[in-house]
Each structure stands twice: as structure tokens, then as C-alpha cells.
């Protein structure tokens, strides 16, 4: 029952972003003239987030999906490339303009235990967000808090409690309420439910879907769980070693994956149907180190179909309609 989007308008545009985290370069390395090294987290990522859609970003650990999420809300600055919101480069924003951007593009964090200040009551957490951003005159703040708690289906007495008095799922609801308090257009959810029990995950996912309809939110859903990403995303981007290797409409990407890595990832995800199990290993080998990236295509060390060109030339995303894949293989 996916909502039909009549207007597709780019809201947030990631343009060729790179980000590397330098490794400690100690005296001994300097004396031995070892060049400084870095973890290459993002290696030229480009994608657009459309207004009103849910864009899923999926990949294994070290693929750069969390770094990308943090670049979107400017918790990280990009090394090169840019993130454009509306028509401004977010790196150029300062002072009140930056704060306004922060309100428009909000993030929800993975860890329900560390993402809330343990010394603040829920009321204080929400009041702070509302008053710093002057969302409401102070007289109306209590009513707004009540509204927000309703919105995320928490009881009213939650306001006077501290984070440790809640379960993991409830804490994630508090995190969502905090993000929604500043009335954002975009929610960036980084592994929103991966720390929760399965039965609780479903509650939070249902809530997110409902809030998105109700508030016309644009959602960037970063996760490693393919099933979840498939369930809630309109479009999905698959990342590998800091690159988007494939991006396209959810249905197309899952039913006809084009990139060999996407194919391997989908095959590796255990089927929920016990009658359809296979004993074939989906992808051999391990992830190469993000410190020393392979030449050419980043997946060439594990790709069963790699040929000469893959070791020389790094493929770029090429389109077939709305479904893009970065692979030298024909078709």
C-alpha cells in the first residue's frame, strides 16, 4: 500500500562525498617513514533523497552507511563533495541558519541506552529542544509535550521519568519524540531498531510508518537488516566499502538485483521460509580493509564474475531507468 508520489522533488542531495578518518600516526611510524594512513569511510557517494519518500540505505559493517547518515545531518563534515539541502550546501550554514537546518533534518540514533541524557527527565529533554528552537512560547510547552508523547504512544506520566525507567523500545520512542519536537522535514534513522527485541522492533517500525504518513516526513532509513529496509523503503541504496553500488526502487532492487554484491547480500540473508533453504555459500571471502582499498572495482576481491576491466577501472553508477548499478558487467 505504498503511497503514490505525484511530485518527485529532490530534498537532500549528496554529491560525490568522500570522508576519511586518519589513523593515529605515531612517532615510530614517522621515524620509519610510513605514510599516514586513513580509514576511507566514504569514497565518492552520490544520491538524492526525494521529498516524502523513505530511502533505505543498507550494507554491512564498514560500508560507510552510518558515516553517510552523519554527513547528512552534519555531525561529520565531508572531506570533498557536498550535501545540498533545498538549494544550499549545508557546509556553508552557520549560526541561526545552521540551527534551522538542524531542525529541518533530524537524526534518530541506534543505541536506546546512550542516546538520551541519563540525568534529564523526558520533560526536560523535550522542553530543551522546544525552547532552544523557540518552537512554542513557554506557556504552550507542556501542552506540546503532551501532544508529542501521544504522537509516539507514550503515556503522559512518562514526562516526569528518567530514561533508565523505560525499556529499549520506549526509549527509542522518546528519541523519536525529541526529533519530532522541532518539526523536521527529514528524519535520518541510523539502525533505529537494531538494538531492540524482534517483537518490539515491529512496534517501532509500525510507529515510524504511521508517523511518516501523518506528518509527511521524508525518511532516510539506515540499517543492516535487509528485511526491515525492504519493508519500509520506497527506494533502496546498497553500499559497499564507502560506495553506493546499486540504488533503485525497492521492488526492482530486491526482485532483480543487478550488482553482484547486492545479489550476494540478498542470497546471504536467511530465508524466513524453512522449505526454501540452500546450502550454497552466497559470498566467499571477507571485506577488504577500508584502509587499503582495492584498485578498480571495490568488490573485485570477492566477485565471482570479476574480469580484467574490474581490476583496472572503478565502475560508476549507470542507469537503467530509476535503477542504477555500478558494475562493468553487461546488463
Amino acid at each position: 500500500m505504498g503511497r503514490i508520489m505525484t511530485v518527485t522533488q529532490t530534498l537532500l542531495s549528496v554529491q560525490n562525498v568522500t570522508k576519511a578518518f586518519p589513523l593515529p600516526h605515531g612517532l615510530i611510524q614517522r621515524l620509519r617513514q610510513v605514510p599516514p594512513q586513513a580509514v576511507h569511510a566514504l569514497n565518492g557517494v552520490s544520491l538524492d533523497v526525494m521529498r516524502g519518500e523513505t530511502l533505505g540505505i543498507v550494507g554491512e559493517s564498514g560500508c560507510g552507511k552510518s558515516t553517510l547518515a552523519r554527513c547528512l545531518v552534519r555531525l561529520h563534515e565531508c572531506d570533498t563533495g557536498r550535501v545540498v539541502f533545498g538549494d544550499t550546501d549545508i557546509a556553508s550554514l552557520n549560526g541561526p541558519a545552521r540551527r534551522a537546518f538542524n531542525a529541518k533534518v533530524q537524526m534518530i540514533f541506534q543505541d536506546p541506552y546512550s542516546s538520551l541524557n541519563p540525568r534529564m527527565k523526558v520533560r526536560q529533554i523535550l522542553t530543551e529542544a522546544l525552547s532552544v528552537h523557540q518552537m512554542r512560547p513557554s506557556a504552550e510547552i507542556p501542552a506540546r509535550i503532551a501532544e508529542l508523547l501521544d504522537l509516539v504512544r507514550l503515556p503522559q506520566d512518562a514526562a516526569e521519568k528518567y530514561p533508565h525507567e523505560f525499556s529499549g523500545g520506549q526509549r527509542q520512542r522518546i528519541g523519536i519524540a525529541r526529533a519530532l519536537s522541532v518539526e523536521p522535514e527529514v528524519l535520518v534513522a541510523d539502525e533505529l531498531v537494531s538494538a531492540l527485541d524482534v517483537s518490539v522492533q515491529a512496534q517501532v517500525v509500525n510507529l515510524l510508518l504511521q508517523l511518516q504518513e501523518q506528518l509527511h516526513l521524508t525518511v532516510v532509513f539506515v540499517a543492516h537488516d535487509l528485511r526491515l529496509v525492504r519493508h519500509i523503503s520506497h527506494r533502496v541504496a546498497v553500499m559497499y566499502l564507502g560506495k553506493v553500488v546499486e540504488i533503485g526502487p525497492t521492488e526492482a532492487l530486491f526482485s532483480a538485483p543487478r550488482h553482484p554484491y547486492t545479489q550476494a547480500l540478498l542470497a546471504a540473508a536467511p530465508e524466513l521460509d524453512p522449505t526454501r533453504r540452500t546450502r550454497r555459500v552466497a559470498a566467499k571471502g571477507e571485506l577488504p580493509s577500508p584502509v587499503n582499498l582495492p584498485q578498480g572495482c571495490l568488490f573485485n576481491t570477492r566477485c565471482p564474475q570479476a574480469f580484467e576491466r574490474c581490476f583496472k577501472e572503478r565502475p560508476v553508477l549507470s542507469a537503467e531507468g530509476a535503477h542504477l548499478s555500478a558494475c562493468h558487467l553487461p546488463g
Partner: protein
Amino acid sequence: MTEVALQVSNLTTTFGHQGTAVTAVDDISFDVMPGEVLGLVGESGSGKSVTLRSIMRLMPQHSSVTGRVLWQGRDLLAMPEPELRKVRGGEISMIFQEPTTALNPVLPVAVQIEENLRAHTTLSKADRGKRSLELMDLVGISDAKRRLTQYPHQFSGGMRQRVMIAIALASTPKLLLADEPTTALDLTIQDQILKLILDLRDELKMSVVLVTHDLGVVAATCDRMAVMYAGRIVESGPVADVFGQPNHAYTRGLLGSVPRSGTERSPLLSIEGTPPGLMNRPTGCAFNPRCEFATDRCRSENPVLQAMAHGHEAACFHSDRVKAAGWAGS
């Protein structure tokens, strides 16, 4: 029928002192057949990991384990400590979720494998070296000779889990207890490890008890499954049967909580509330506060496992209504 490999009956594990003790595992019984992979599934606090550790008597102080764990005619729970040590890491091996912490960081891998070989085999030093190489090959670590001299931190997460398995297999165990062995791993690596476990099961004719919270892992690897909730087994049976027709309201909710293709962006069949903690188990059926089928009987009386079809059991007063309600996967 072949003979049962491991028979657990009325296993109960409590923590703490009398009076304030909490029950983590509450009177559970199950069998593991030779060569079978049994999945113990549940959410946090369900007692699945405690069950596994109780079998091996790997429990912290101030805990008590009662019941019977029959392994080849002997009760592991009544066995004297020296004899148990021979079984542990010998006929029964265990692997853990976090290979990083389960391996000794200051010893090369070779030493850690040899240690187990020395404890559980009569091999000579030279033979132990040879066997170590074989084990590394067996678990799919190439360049074994060089890798054996390395320390755990020189291995990636997936490789460390392979090393753990190699150590566990050193004594050619007949039963492998695996506690969330792939939870810390990436999808493609999880896939490799699960299939490795299945291959080893075939090759070494051992049984496996696999503890996991991931229903996908169960569907892809296990022959039979037991669903645990609040310290009890609420449903058990052949994997295909349980996935095909859950008989317990909790199993139905759990299966419905996992998104599946064809239902994109529609609400998931979720379960309200959260799993109960050890301290506040509800009376009656522990699931009743979260159950849409619950009646007064569920709130006062604790249901016991009843045979539903052959080999398929559920502890639910309303399995007929649960079945009639259908579920996302049917």
C-alpha cells in the same frame, strides 16, 4: 527411532539466594537427536542462553541448576567436577557470540587449539601440530600454517569465529552448543559460518544446539526449534511445522513481527509491550499481558506443553483460536 543424544528434563535455573531468588529457566525439557540441529529461539530474558550454560554447568556463583541433563546415559548435572571437565570441551563443545572475548588475546591461535587437543586427546606433540592444521583447513582458514602462529587480534570477526569453531572441534565433539554464534557478524559472514556449521555437522555427525534471536537463522539452519519465553518453552517442533502453523500466540506474534516480502509498508503483526524481566514474571501464562487471545484462565493458570501434531507441541490454552486467526506467513 534412533536414540536420543541429549535429554534435558525439568531443567530449572535460579539466581540469587533463597527467598530472593529469581528463576531464569523454569522447568524445561527437550531432546536433541544425533546429527540434529535444534534451535532455541527467544528474545532477551527468555532464558535461552542460560539454558545452554546450565547444560554445561557454566553458571556464576549463587545460582542453582536442578533437573536432569542426560548425555549418553550420564547426568551432567550430577556428575563430579573432574569428570565433567572431560565432557566439557571434549564430547560437548561450546562456541560463543563474541569470539573476541572468548579467545585469549595473548596466546597465538596454535597454542589455544593445542591446549584443547592436549586436554582431550592422546595425540603426540607432532600429531597435535598436524591436527591443528587439519582443523584450520576444516573451518575454512587458508594459509593455515602461517595463521596458526598469529594472535586473535590479527583475525577478522568472521575468522575469529572460525578459530573458535576450530578450537571447539579439536576434540571431535558429538554435540556443539552455539550461543548466538553469528549475531556479531555481517550478513555474508553469518551465511558462511552457518553453512560451515551445517557442513561440519554432516561431516562429523554431531548434534548442534543453536541459540539465537534471529528467526531467519532458525529457518535457514535448524531441523527442530523450541521457542522460549520468560524462561519456558512455549512451543517446539520441526522448523517447517512451526513456521507453517504457529500454535502459540507468542510464536505467531514473533513470526508476524518479522517483515516479509509482499507486505511492504503495511503494519507488522507486532506484539504490544516488552518481554518481562526476571523480577516481574506475570502469573499464569507469562505471555498473557501481551496476548490478544488471553482470557481469565491464562491469567491464573500456567499452560503446559501439549502435543499438537506429531513432534509439534505448544503451551497455549487457545491454540485453536491462534490457528484460526491465521498469520502473515500463511
